Each structure stands twice: as C-alpha cells, then as structure tokens.
C-alpha cells in the first residue's frame, strides 16, 4: 500500500535534493485523490547547528521550489506544504524527534514518513536507525529515500576499423619512446609491445568514429594554431580574474547563462567546454548535446562568451575555415536566454 500523503522531515543534507525528488514522485505515482507532501523542519533553539530561523526558512523555501520543479504539470494535484515544528521544545534524543513528528503527522492526517538517508538535524549524531524504529512504533509507514538514481548511459565501445587500431598503436609507441627518451633495442621492443597492448585494449574506446588520416592531420595542424590563441586568452583571463579577486570590493556579478553552441559531436564540444572553463570568468557547468550551461563571473565575461571568439576558433579547428564564419551566438539571437539568477 502506498499512501499519497507524506511527511518529510528535512535538514541541511547533501542528499536533500534527491529526497525531495523521491517524495514528490512517490506522491504523484500513488495517484491519490488528495496527494500531499509536508516538508517539516524539526527546529529546536538549543540545537548546535549554527543555523538561525532565517536559515531554516530559506531551506524550506528552497525545498518548496524544488518540489514545484519536480511536480511540473502535476502541480495542481499535490498539496505541498512546509512547516517548522518543535520550536520551543527541547529536542535531543531520537524519541523527541519522533514525538514531534508523530504529533504533526496525526494533526495533518499523514501516514507515511519519507526519511532522507542523510537526515541529521542534530549535527553528527547517527539518528536515523533509532528514529526509524521510533516512528514505526508510533504507527507510521517509514520509507527511506533511495540513493541510487536511474541513469542513462552513453556507449563505451564503438565500432572501429584497422586504421584506428594502427593509429592507437602508433600513438602509444611514439609516446612510449618520447617518455623513455631512448632508442635502445629494449625500448623499441617493449614500446612496440605496449603499443600492441594499448591498441588491443582501447582501440574501440578512443575514437568516436572511423579515422580519416588527412582530416586528422589538418585538425592537428589547426589545433596547434588554436593552442597559441588559447594560451593568450588564458593569460588575459587570468589577469582579469587576478584583478577581480584582489580588488578590495570584489567586483563580481556572477550569473548562470545558457546558450546553444554551433558545434557538434563529442570532442569539439569538450574542447569548447574546457576552453570556456579556462578562459575569461566562465565555467562550463553542464552540457546537454549542444546546450551549454555556463557560470560567468562578471558581465564582461558574458560579453566575451556571446561574441563567440572561442566558439569560432573551435569550429575552425574541427571543421575548417568555412565553418568559422557561422554567426556568433549574439548574432544568432542566443543572448538573453539567461537562466535563473538576477536580472541584468
């Protein structure tokens, strides 16, 4: 039996985001007529959490935003509430916590408790197993939010051809001789052996598709040009960061922005993402196929990002000169798709 009315005690914890998602999903799936999730914070002034009431309110507010996020279209069907309980009482043992939770649960007619696996309002004391027992004795059904999440994975091993095998072997052999720094018979033999081993193990992992040597050489050539450009950008970026960090007033205006980059496939996207991370006040937080979520430190950094110099350079490396002329994100109208954060 699954109940559609849940009581979720919350505290500052690393698994909180996940617990909220689990509780919301649980209610939605139960298809209960009067689904409800109550997030409660057992608060006691004596607790040594270093948190005052404003911190608690902020936490509950955050939880509510997450719950709305997860509910999406079902927002109307489920009643989400937050409350601070136990204020003014002295909460110490798991029994105390169970008592205030049980009292609240009975008042609000909730039958199931979802526990955060990292729930620990009193700091470091291991509270969970005894709390679970106490709550079950009080007549609640107790669920612990699972920590594993469903995962979608990319393919590890891809198709390959002989060219790929030889290329990996050659790369490995060359690298072996480079770090060995000698051309003695011993090094040549062991180097060849490791080339074969490395290629056997990794030949279908290293490349995303069949290798075309001509195109690869061109890319490597353009890559070396790009490296100089990148190093220059990195130095400029760091001087800017140094100015910002050492400035007495810390003139930063951080903000998350999202934009769709005009690069395709794995390696170019990664090159662009890592270049973004290394250059002016920008940090790639997430990439979903072409959509980049970037955290930017200053308004100037955002400007540079949208004017698309790096993106153009990466396109030049991987697709040649013609592709470099694709318009910049600003010209494509990508600018302004700010995500959350402050208004500019």
């Amino acid at each position, binding site marked *: 039996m699954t109940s559609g009315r849940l009581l979720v005690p919350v505290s500052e*914890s*690393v*698994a*909180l*985001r*996940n*617990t909220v998602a*689990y509780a919301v999903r649980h209610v939605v799936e139960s298809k209960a007529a009067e689904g409800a999730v109550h997030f409660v914070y057992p608060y006691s002034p004596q607790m040594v959490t270093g948190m005052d009431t404003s911190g608690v309110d902020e936490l509950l507010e955050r939880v509510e935003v997450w719950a709305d996020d997860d509910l999406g279209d079902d927002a109307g069907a489920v009643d989400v509430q937050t409350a601070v309980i136990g204020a003014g009482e002295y909460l110490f043992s798991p029994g105390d916590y169970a008592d205030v939770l049980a009292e609240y649960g009975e008042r609000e007619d909730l039958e199931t408790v979802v526990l955060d*696996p*990292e729930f620990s309002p009193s700091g470091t004391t291991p509270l969970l197993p005894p709390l679970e027992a106490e709550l079950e004795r009080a007549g609640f059904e107790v669920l612990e*939010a*699972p*920590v*594993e*999440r469903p*995962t979608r994975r990319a393919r590890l091993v891809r198709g390959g051809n002989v060219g790929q095998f030889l290329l990996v072997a050659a790369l490995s052999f060359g690298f072996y001789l480079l770090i060995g720094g000698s051309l003695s018979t011993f090094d040549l033999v062991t180097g060849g052996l490791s080339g074969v081993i490395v290629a056997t193990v990794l030949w279908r992992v290293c490349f995303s598709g069949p290798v075309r040597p001509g195109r690869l050489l061109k890319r490597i050539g353009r890559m070396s040009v790009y490296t100089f450009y990148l190093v220059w950008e990195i130095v400029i970026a760091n001087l800017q960061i140094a100015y910002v960090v050492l400035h007495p007033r810390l003139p930063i205006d951080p903000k998350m922005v999202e934009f769709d980059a005009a690069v395709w496939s794995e390696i170019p996207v990664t090159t662009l993402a890592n270049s973004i991370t290394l250059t002016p006040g920008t940090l790639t937080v997430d990439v979903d196929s072409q959509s980049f979520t970037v955290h930017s430190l200053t308004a100037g950094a955002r400007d540079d990002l949208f004017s698309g110099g790096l993106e153009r350079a990466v396109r030049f490396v991987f697709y040649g000169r013609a592709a470099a002329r694709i318009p910049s994100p600003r010209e494509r109208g990508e600018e302004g798709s700010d995500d959350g954060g402050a208004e500019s």
Partner: protein
Amino acid sequence: MTLLTTALFAATAAFVALSVVIVYRIVRGPTMQDRVIAVNAVGTNTVVVIALIGAATDDPGVLDIALVYALLNFLMSIAISKFTVERGGVM
C-alpha cells in the same frame, strides 16, 4: 646554492604555504563540493611542488611521480563528483 636552486626552493616554500592557506577552505566547507575543489587545488599545488623539488635537487625521475600524482588528483575529483551525483548525494 646558486640563484636557480634558491629561486626554486623559494617557489616551493611559497606553494606549500599557499596549500596550507587553502586547507582553511577544506576545513570550513561549507558544502562537500567546496572541499573537493579545495582538495583539487591543493593537489595541483602538490604536483607543482614535487616538480619543483625535482628541479631543485636535479632529480628528473621525480617528474614521473608528479605525473602519477596529477593523474590521481584528476581521478579523485571526477570520482567524488560522479558518485555523489549518481547516489543522490550519499557517498
């Protein structure tokens, strides 16, 4: 001591001191990611320190150790990030 070794040792000392400063962030947190990023920074500094000591004492073999350390540092960062995300915040 030549000027070079003095400079190298001075830089080594500076990087060690900086790492000690960063330890404040590891202790203070507040989130686990803060700690990971600080540990990662200390790791990068350690790689540099190993390389510097190698250069100052003229022992090129030490560079191999620095390389391995850099590798482990990277592995630590991605491992912690991945497992915290995949297990919903629980290590």
